[in-house]
């Protein structure tokens, strides 16, 4: 037996022993909830076994999860859209709700979309559905992007600069926005004044990437804290002062 195999057998035995103790002492209730916490802890630890090295236990949990997640999404799509907005309106069609007949169009388009994975004979139908979705999305996006992300962002960059700290901040923001735009400018070489501006632009970018970097680290650690909280509090039932 290799070192890794011994390691995983020990891991497994310890996990089982802890759970026998937890169920035996009544910390975990002998019902579906208790069993659920036991499974959840097992999945959590299986995934963390990746830290030792990539292994079958990790892949087991990962792939099982992919299947469950796909089914969960499919379920939500069924109950809230396909059932509520398509099947029920069609099944309740009467003279008053004939306007619902319009729903035939998107339903057909939707079915066209599914032909993408069929034989080549029909798969061109999916192009019509994609053309509709992508074309409409593109059309709706243009004016709204200009309104929300261009015009609304320009106005606050044109405020009067006063001789105060706020004024200085506004000036720094203006310099930052302008130099970052210069950095992402491809029609002129980055030499001379343009080179200087793009260099300043890089500094601004780096400060903001640093901020994102710090925040991302923070986010991942928060997730870890959440999981450790689950293992310690819900599974091992340890007294955590503040959780």
């Amino acid at each position, binding site marked *: 037996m290799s070192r890794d195999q011994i390691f995983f057998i020990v891991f497994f035995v310890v996990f089982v022993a802890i759970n026998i103790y937890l169920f035996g002492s009544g910390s975990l209730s002998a019902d579906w909830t208790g069993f659920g916490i036991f499974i959840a802890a097992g999945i959590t630890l299986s995934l963390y076994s990746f830290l030792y090295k990539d292994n079958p236990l990790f892949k087991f949990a*990962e792939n099982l999860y992919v299947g469950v997640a796909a089914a969960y999404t499919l379920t939500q799509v069924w109950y809230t859209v396909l059932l509520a907005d398509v099947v029920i309106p069609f099944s309740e069609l009467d003279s008053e709700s004939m306007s619902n007949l319009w729903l035939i169009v998107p339903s057909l388009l939707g079915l066209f979309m599914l032909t993408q994975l069929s034989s080549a004979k029909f798969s061109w139908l999916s192009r019509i559905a994609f053309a509709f979705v992508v074309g409409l999305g593109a059309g709706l996006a243009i*004016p709204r992007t200009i309104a929300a992300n261009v015009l609304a962002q*320009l106005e606050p960059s*044109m405020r009067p600069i006063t001789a105060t700290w706020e004024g200085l901040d506004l000036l720094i923001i203006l310099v930052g926005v302008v130099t970052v735009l210069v950095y992402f*400018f491809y*029609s002129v070489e980055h030499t001379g004044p343009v080179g200087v501006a793009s260099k300043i632009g890089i500094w601004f970018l*780096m400060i903001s990437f640093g901020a994102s970097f710090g925040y991302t680290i923070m986010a991942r650690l928060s997730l870890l804290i959440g999981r450790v909280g689950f293992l310690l509090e819900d599974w091992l039932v340890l007294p955590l002062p503040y959780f």
Partner: protein
Amino acid sequence: MRYFLCCIILVLCAAQLYAQQPTGVKAEDTPNDSGGSITVVWNRAELPDGTMYKIAVSESETGPFHPAASIDPSGNLQSSDPGTFGHGTETSQMHFAKIAEYDDPVDPSKKIAIENGKTYYVQVIAQLPYDEVFPSAIASTEAYENFFNTLKTNNFVLGTIFSLIILGGIFLAQKRELFIRRIAGLEALDEALGRATEMGKPVLFIHGLHPMGSVSTIAAINVLARVAQRTAEFNTELRVANQDPVVMAVSQEVVKESYLNAGRPDAYSENSVFMVATEQFSYAAALDGMMVRDRPATNIMMGYFYAESLLLAETGASTGAIQIAGTDSYTQLPFFITTCDYTLMGEELYAASAYLSREPKLLGSLKGQDIGKAVLLIVMILGTILTTILGNQTLTHIFTAY
């Protein structure tokens, strides 16, 4: 004398009465809507505390008038809605109210909606404390549907100009060569490939997780074509890792073609472009294993990456490989910048792709976007100068989203 004083007091009282009556009352269709609403405007006045303006609506000039709205004189100034009334100084001296419904005379808890194409008569009543009321003159109008939202005029004009510039750029690019500056990342790429050749070790190209349709994957494919061209010329081993079967199929074609173009079709092996795994972390884990085992001299990561970026770049850096990354996923950029030797940031990836592929649609729209950026840049600088030095806000007002 006594008679004279009485006269003055009476005149003053009358003036007072007159002053408390809302003046300048006008009614119009509410602009920029699909009807069902009229707008009433009237002059601002000095009034005692506790006064309220009541708006009343009738379908006939002689009444009866029905309550429609109650307005606090401290609010509803036209200056609070510059989109409709503009930025003039007079807007701070005018009130307005948009009326879409009024109380049903039969049952006051219900409302009657304003209908299109029907004439309505409107009165503004100043209601002073202790219930003294001063009704204004009567104004009339009808509501109708509008065909253009004037609030969005600037949006429409700017959108049209941008569209023309970008489409013009694409058109122009088909006619002649457009200039694009050198992309520093591409030179770094050549250097890194050179080093792999010197060391006699393979080059590993890693695709991101987006499918074939996405802009970043298309850009990655264009970069891959260049990389394959070079490795064919240098006779260096190239490996291309994929997560998506379609991307893999396209990559195989592209690499094969590049080897053909370099005159070395024999050096191409189909197995050099391969699927690694379908799941995010399995993909990263398998590639990490490959990096540690085979120690490629150069790792190139192009496309859209998620959290796996860190796992890939960290392992790559620890094996001492030269790493070049390119992604438009801004959240992952910091990880690449700190672990890679060179990183194509965001749009630079698209620019590199346009630069390499020389495809008119990419070059042209890049050029068009450049002009667009120049416009925005000039507007911001000019706008700030105007407001700061001259106190002139015209440019700011033109570029405000209403």
